[in-house]
């Protein structure tokens, strides 16, 4: 499948890695850390939704699992933060396997799949808001311990490089999926499930594996969130806000593309900040502008920003190739 080469991905990441050398502004770095976090979570969604065509409205289930496993293992069982973070990813993958097995085995598709994933996330949110181990309504505060071995840092720059590294890994994973047989099968499931079955694709299994990879990537975002903000509660970890962020970034950026979630996260987050500036203190006005601009983007670039760029590039190429023949526009 066509897509950016690994070398190109490394180049983009290398450029982004230089940002903390240019600015030490906490505002800028904090903004970028959050945008990259959304890019990571969105990339998780993109594996299942963008490539597999299974639109989940409940990726909070995986984000929250990653966040809670990371926090609980540290605070309740004294596990090292990095180990807890890795186990959080594993926990997310396990949650993905469980929800995937239940939904795909029963043959849920389309809007039914979306609704059931939403329901799973909501059930987890409610459970987390009452269970003692999750801190119930109070949430979990991770004790301040600013040492690298505790996955906590003095400067934002270090957090920035870590989330950038996670995004880089997710980009490479997705690119490798694109080039693999599994990726071809996943796209086949998205395009036409019956046709995929007819050429020997075990569609239930392909969807399940995609769900596990998707959940693991999103859970990494949850674990990072816990370490960065040092506090989570049921509304943060399993709340609908993160399910929406997870699908908004790839949809705006271009679903089923390697760079879509990253592009989308940067655009959506920039837009969010700009509208806050423009709207000033008028309550809710920023959200109105934000929503309107999103509608315009989706209306004029139905394949996202990545699709728009590809379109422009193709038109430009056609224009250039037609010039020698003195041809028509």
């Amino acid at each position: 499948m066509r897509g950016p080469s690994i070398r190109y991905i490394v180049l983009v990441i290398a450029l982004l890695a230089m940002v903390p050398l240019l600015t030490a502004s906490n505002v800028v770095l904090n903004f970028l850390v959050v945008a990259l976090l959304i890019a990571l979570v969105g990339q998780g969604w993109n594996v299942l939704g963008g490539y597999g065509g299974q639109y989940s409205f409940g990726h909070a289930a995986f984000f929250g699992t990653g966040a809670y496993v990371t926090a609980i293992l540290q605070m309740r069982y004294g596990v090292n933060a990095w180990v807890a973070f890795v186990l959080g990813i594993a926990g997310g993958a396990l949650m993905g396997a469980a929800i995937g097995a239940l939904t795909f085995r029963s043959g849920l598709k389309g809007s039914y799949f979306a609704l059931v994933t939403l329901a799973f996330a909501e059930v987890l949110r409610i459970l987390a808001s009452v269970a003692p181990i999750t801190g119930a309504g109070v949430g979990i505060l991770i004790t301040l311990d600013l040492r690298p071995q505790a996955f906590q840092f003095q400067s934002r720059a270090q957090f920035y490089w870590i989330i950038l590294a996670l995004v880089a890994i997710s980009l490479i994973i997705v690119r490798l999926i694109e080039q693999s047989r599994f990726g071809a099968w996943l796209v086949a499931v998205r395009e036409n499930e019956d046709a995929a079955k007819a050429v020997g694709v075990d569609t239930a299994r392909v969807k399940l594996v995609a769900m596990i990879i998707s959940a693991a990537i999103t859970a990494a975002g949850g674990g990072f969130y816990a370490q960065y903000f040092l506090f989570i509660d049921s509304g943060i970890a399993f709340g609908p806000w993160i399910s929406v962020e997870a699908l908004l970034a790839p949809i705006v950026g271009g679903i089923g593309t390697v760079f879509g979630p990253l592009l989308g996260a940067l655009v959506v987050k920039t837009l969010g900040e700009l509208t806050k500036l423009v709207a000033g203190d008028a309550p809710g006005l920023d959200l109105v502008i934000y929503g309107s601009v999103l509608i315009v983007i989706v209306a004029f670039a139905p394949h996202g920003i990545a699709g728009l760029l590809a379109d422009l590039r193709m038109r430009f190429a056609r224009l250039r190739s037609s010039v020698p023949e003195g041809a028509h526009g």
Partner: protein
Amino acid sequence: MAEPLLRVERVFKRFGGLLAVDNVSLVVEPDRITALIGPNGAGKTTLFSIISGFLASSAGRIFHRGTDITGMPPHLLARRGIARTFQIVQPFAGLTVHENIAIGAHLSRRSRADALDVAAEVASTVGLGDLLDRPAASLTVAGRKRLELARALATNPGLLLLDEVLAGLNPGEVAAMVPIIRGLADRGVTTLMTEHVMQAVMSLAEHVFVLAEGRIIAEGAPRAVVGNPRVVEAYLGHGAAARLSAAGAAHV
């Protein structure tokens, strides 16, 4: 007699009060083209869906190379070498012709490059060689029928189930497609095809089963079958055979 490639044994399919497939038994012998013909609504596609695992039969058994494959899911049948096309074409619409066929080729080839190579080769055998980079959605009906065939062929099947690959094509397009299908037997692919373009069946198939109202009403060589009064009646209505032979006699 040796075990046939495919043996369908007393298969029934009931949809509520409708008996769509009624006690059908048939065999497909290797290395030749067998056709399943019959008027619209005879149950051809239903029977195909049962054989290819997309639909469960109400009763009866199906054997492939002597193994009971009744109720096996489609992807496992594909891995056994049974490939099918769809009467209502099912392209991977968002992908190119090349990518569509490559997904079929991936069944036996892990590497992307290998699958794409095989796909290009198969595309040229069905006459899609020049359209590799076209989006599947931009193909004409004839192009899409070829794509169905190419994608199934790319799985390297031993048994190919063609569900009305000629339906909806104009006479020129049918004429172009017939030699491609005939060429399959030369490549060692056994074909079972449903069709209601009679002329094509006559020139392609070596053995024909006629299905009407869910039942096999005749079988044999194509020439023998079309002369069978029961077959004529199934297509043209009750009493048609008698009227036709009367009209024939009058002309003589």
